[in-house]
Structure formats: C-alpha cells, structure tokens
C-alpha cells in the first residue's frame, strides 16, 4: 500500500492546464445559450447555429401540374446570396454569406423569413464582436501573450436541402469556433397555404411519434452493427424517443429527416446525426 501512496503523489502532481478554465467557461456559456434559444429570445454566444427553413409551395393544382413537368422552379421560388462580406482582425475572423428568399408565393411569409434571417445574422455578428473583444481582454489580463491569442471565428452560410415544386428547404449555418464547436439548430417548417408551421404529424400521420421512434432506433442499431466506431450514448443519456420540439427538415425525396445536434445522442466526435424517415 505504501507504493500506492507514493504513486498517488505523482498522480496528484498532474495539474490541469490554464486552457481548462477557458473550456469550462465556454462550456457553461453554451448552456446559457441553450436556455435562451429554447425561449427563442435571441442568439447568444453559442458556437454554432443552424437555421433551417422549409417552405412548401402550395400552388393551385393546375399550376402545380404545369410547373412539375417543366423544371423552371428557379423562376418561381429562390434562395440567393443577399449579402456577402468578411472581416478579419486580431480578435476575430468573420465570414458572412447571408441568404434571402424570393417568390415563395406568400409575400407576408417571405418578409417574415427574410426579416428573421436578418435578425439572426445581425445578432450573431454583433455578439461575436462584443464577445471577441472581451475574450481577448480577459486572455491578456490573465497573463496570456497577445501574440498567441487565437481569434474567434464566425462563419455564416447556407445550404439548399431540397428545391422542387412542393418544397423549398434550406439551412442557415452560423458556425462559431474558438475553443470548440457546438451546434445549435432552429428549424422552421412552414406551410405557405395555411401560414402555419408544418408538424411531424402533417408528414408522418397521427402515429408520427411511434413511426419516427421506431425508425430512428432501427437505424441506430444498423449503424452500430455496420461500423464498430459508431457509438451512441446508452440508457438515459441516449435516444429516448423524439421530443415535442424535434428538429427536422425535408429532403429531396420529400421525406422527413430527423436531426440531432452534436452531443445530443452520441459523443461529440460523431457530430450531428441525421435519420431519414422513409
């Protein structure tokens, strides 16, 4: 036992590096963000924000028929780069590619979506500027060498998930990188005809929870069986059925794709997890 006592001294001599405090701070900051995001107040300091808009085009049937045969959808509804700029200094690197939607067939909703994108982008860029200054100041005050400071980076861009005669679906990514990258997502699935958000029950029917749960569970098992490196959290930490505000988008096949953020049902290295419900 005496040898173990001696080994203990060596074990205890390992101290956490100064970087640890930064990691703790940024982790808890993410927590703060998460709470805000749930209340849909504003963007905060979280590392990454994804916003997905799904706009269903509900044309009258004759019109829909005519456009379905000729792929001229780009004239009808579009997502394009509205603003593009980048900014770089010693505290931050900022790159923004802000999308805008047009001709989605509902002027009111179009305005609302564009306004919302604008607000999200503005809030994120403002936050990064403020946050970057404070972080650098804190870094130097705690004895860090200004030349070693790693600038904060923010990258806003978008990606079209699907675009056809029925659906216009795209994702706005706001990635915030410094000590880590954490993904937060806000999804909007909007039915243009009713002006309401599309629910999972609209797409999957009354038993949508059962349908989605079974499919996700099955796919998790399949992925684990196919590749031993695919690890998902187990028991109470793992997938326990879709939630009331489950995130999803609609893909090119018109199917619902259930999305889980990094860390939500699997270790961080697994990244975001997507499950197509066929």
């Amino acid at each position, binding site marked *: 036992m005496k*040898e*173990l006592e*001696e*080994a*203990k*001294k*060596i*074990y*205890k*001599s*390992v*101290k*956490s*590096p100064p*970087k*640890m*405090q930064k*990691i*703790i701070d940024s*982790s*808890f900051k*993410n*927590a703060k963000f*998460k*709470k805000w995001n749930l209340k849909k107040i504003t963007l905060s300091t979280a590392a990454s924000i994804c916003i997905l808009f799904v706009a269903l085009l509900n044309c009258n049937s004759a019109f829909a028929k005519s456009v379905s045969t000729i792929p001229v959808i780009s004239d009808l509804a579009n997502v394009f780069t509205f603003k593009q700029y980048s900014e770089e200094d010693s505290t931050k690197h900022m790159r923004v590619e802000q999308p805008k939607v047009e001709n989605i067939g509902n002027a009111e909703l179009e305005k609302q979506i564009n306004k919302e994108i604008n607000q999200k982008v503005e809030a994120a860029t403002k936050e990064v500027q403020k946050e970057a200054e404070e972080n650098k100041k804190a870094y130097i005050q705690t004895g860090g060498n200004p030349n070693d400071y790693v600038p904060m980076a923010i990258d806003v861009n978008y990606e079209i998930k699907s675009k056809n005669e029925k659906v216009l679906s795209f994702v706005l990514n706001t990635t915030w990188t410094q*000590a*880590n990258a*954490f993904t937060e997502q806000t999804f909007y699935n909007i039915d243009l005809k009713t002006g309401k958000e599309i629910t999972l029950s609209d797409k999957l029917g009354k038993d949508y929870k059962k349908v989605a749960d079974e499919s996700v569970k099955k796919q998790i098992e399949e992925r684990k069986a196919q590749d031993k*490196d695919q*690890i998902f*959290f187990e028991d*109470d*930490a793992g997938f326990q059925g879709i939630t009331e505000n489950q995130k999803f988008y609609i893909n090119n096949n018109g199917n619902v794709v259930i999305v889980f953020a990094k*860390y*939500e049902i699997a*270790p*961080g*290295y697994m990244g975001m997890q997507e499950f197509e419900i066929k």
Partner: protein
Amino acid sequence: MQEKLEVFKKYVEENQDAFYRLAFSYTKNYDAALDVVQEALLKSIDKLSTLKNIDYLKTWFYRILVNEGLNYLRKNKRLVLVEDFEFEKSELSSCDNIAESIDMYSAVQALEPKIRTVIILRFFEDMKLKEISKITKTNVSTVKSRLYKGLELLKISIDEE
C-alpha cells in the same frame, strides 16, 4: 435551474485538476484529456435538468466523465499515444524513492481501463466503494473484485521490474 448551473460550475472549477487527471489517465495525451473533459462537461450541462438531487452531483458527473474516457478508448483503440509525463519536481521531493514511485504510477496507468478506473478512484481520489459503484454503474462486489484484481496485478507488474 440557473442556481443548479452555478453550483455545478463552482464544483467543476474547484475540482478541475481531478477531472483533468482522470481524463488524462485514459487518453495519455494532454489535448485529448481536455477534449474528454469538455465532452463530459457539455453533455452533463445538457443533461443537468435530469439530475434531481444536487447531492449526487459528484457521482453523477464522475459517471459521465468515466464514460467519456472509456468512449475515447473505444474510439481510439488502434491509436496509441505515448507522451512523456512531466512532473512537478516540488511534488516529487516528498517521495522516498522517486524511481519506484514512478514505476508504480506507470503500472497503475497500464492496467486495463475498468480496473484502472477503480484503482484511481479508490486510492488516488480517496473515494468510497459505494461511490465508485455508483460511478461505474456496477454493484459493490464487482467494484471490490476489480479492486483486488488490480492490486494483484500491480504486485505482479512491480515484481517483474
């Protein structure tokens, strides 16, 4: 919730050395140890609302941390990282025989992960068997058998030197 979060943050800050050391015992790499702690933190912050009684914070968080450490090993089983340990001289001056102590330390670090976890928590972090059983989600008798197995192996590996 906000209050719970603050209690948790304070607890993490006060015990960060212990968490880092434990993570390091799995990764044997400084940066990877930070990653493991971070993963455990983000995950536990996310799940904090499911922790009903704040008194169980310690075993609850250690359980997440140990799981993250084992996950790391599972994920990186083909990757062997060898890094020289850097020890604080002042800490070591109190050791009677530094070479022997380092041998023992290395022997502990070389144990099979599940056994190592028990040995570290019991002897280096002075935890009770009951706490360890909660952290590792096994019953006390399993913890005991791993403990004895570990001690047995340590004697062997020391004798071989």
